[in-house]
């Protein structure tokens, strides 16, 4: 047997593929955030007012808050199963840069839980009276926002994976970091609706996303290494 070392990119693709395969077999767990997102946003008109012009005022904010909480819901279990069954141990020992493998895992997690929220947002937004003119901005801001949140959440989940009942701690860690996303994201939607250019808040969202993308893998791999030490 002569061993050909797997290129890092191929290894990352395997991690991604594996999580997709697993999600396909456990689709009910994956669908949970999306269901939460749809249910919460449909409750708002019921609880406040069916008047679309009044809903429109808060619509962008509601969609963003719901998306944020829905993403958070899926985070807690992100690394838990892999740490408990020893898979992350093998990742650490695979000779591949751990950060890339974890980033691939987070990417799979985003495709499964973040992307559906983005795709669903025009429908959800319409229910809250958002005009079609803001669909683009809403989706783009959520695209950047959920992406950033998956990475930030990945860092939080990696840090709290060794902690029993870590979900409270995870929310406390991630939510403050997510506040800028919420502020800039909903601001972009409001500005678009008021006829202003939303470029400013969108650029800030993009800046936060790229910062998370570049530093996140380092933080996650450091946190996972600490977690497997137990």
């Amino acid at each position: 047997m002569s061993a050909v070392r797997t290129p890092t990119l191929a290894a990352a693709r395997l991690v991604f593929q594996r999580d997709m395969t697993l999600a396909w077999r456990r689709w009910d767990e994956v669908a949970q955030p999306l269901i939460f997102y749809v249910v919460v946003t449909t409750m708002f008109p019921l609880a406040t007012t069916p008047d679309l012009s009044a809903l429109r005022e808060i619509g962008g904010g509601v969609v963003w808050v719901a998306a944020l909480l829905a993403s958070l819901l899926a985070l807690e279990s992100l690394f838990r199963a892999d740490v408990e069954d020893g898979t992350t141990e093998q990742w650490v020992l695979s000779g591949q840069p751990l950060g890339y493998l974890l980033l691939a895992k987070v990417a799979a997690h985003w495709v499964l839980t973040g992307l559906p929220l983005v795709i669903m947002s025009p429908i959800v937004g319409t229910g809250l009276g958002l005009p079609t003119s803001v669909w683009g901005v809403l989706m783009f801001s959520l695209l950047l926002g959920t992406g950033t949140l998956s990475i930030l959440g990945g860092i939080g989940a990696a840090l709290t994976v060794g902690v029993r009942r870590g979900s409270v701690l995870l929310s406390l860690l991630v939510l403050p970091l997510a506040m800028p996303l919420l502020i800039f994201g909903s601001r972009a939607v409001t500005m678009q609706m008021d006829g202003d250019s939303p470029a400013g808040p969108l650029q800030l969202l993009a800046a936060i996303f790229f910062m998370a993308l570049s530093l996140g893998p380092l933080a996650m791999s450091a946190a996972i290494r600490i977690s497997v030490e137990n």
Partner: protein
Amino acid sequence: MAFDGAVFEAREINAWRGDRHILRDVSFSVRPGEFLKVTGPNGVGKTTLLRVICGLLPAETGELSWRGQSIRGRRDEFNFELGHLGHLNSLKGDLTARENLKFLAGLRTTLTAETIDSTLDRVGILSRGDLPARSLSAGQKRRLALARLLLADAALWILDEPVTNLDTAGIRLVEELIVDHVEQGGLAIAAAHQRLLDDAPCLRRLELEP
């Protein structure tokens, strides 16, 4: 496979777990063709020692070297030559045996369907290849974990209680695999309570004392 000069050496390893000083000045070396069996009562630090070697636990003091060079700062290179079988089998219950190998062993070396099949055959679970790992017996899961170790094609094997859950045929299989590995010039370090290759010429012992 040539593992010339592949000597693993540990010098004066000290490690703590919480406030317990578990490993005190442990030193040893393993050369190609040798199987080092770490023995000692429960809780003496066998697993701790193996995890320190793998870098899964930090050592307080001491030096690990591989091929004559300290592994500090060269972890990824060292890890690629290291195959680890821990207490946990690192299997996903929802994936089939073949998928488990593809997605985990495949991270290290590029695998083909034939290599996977021949390895499953070697550990005696080829007929279970398409069953979810969840439905395998404890012994079969252990065999699947052994298949992963074989596919890693590593020079240095670190085995923590490799024969757990295995029947007598399984224990013989582990013994054969270890002998094959060291005869090809590989190195192996295992923690074991049970009889394991007790009379083999490649065996060296490291007794840990409380």
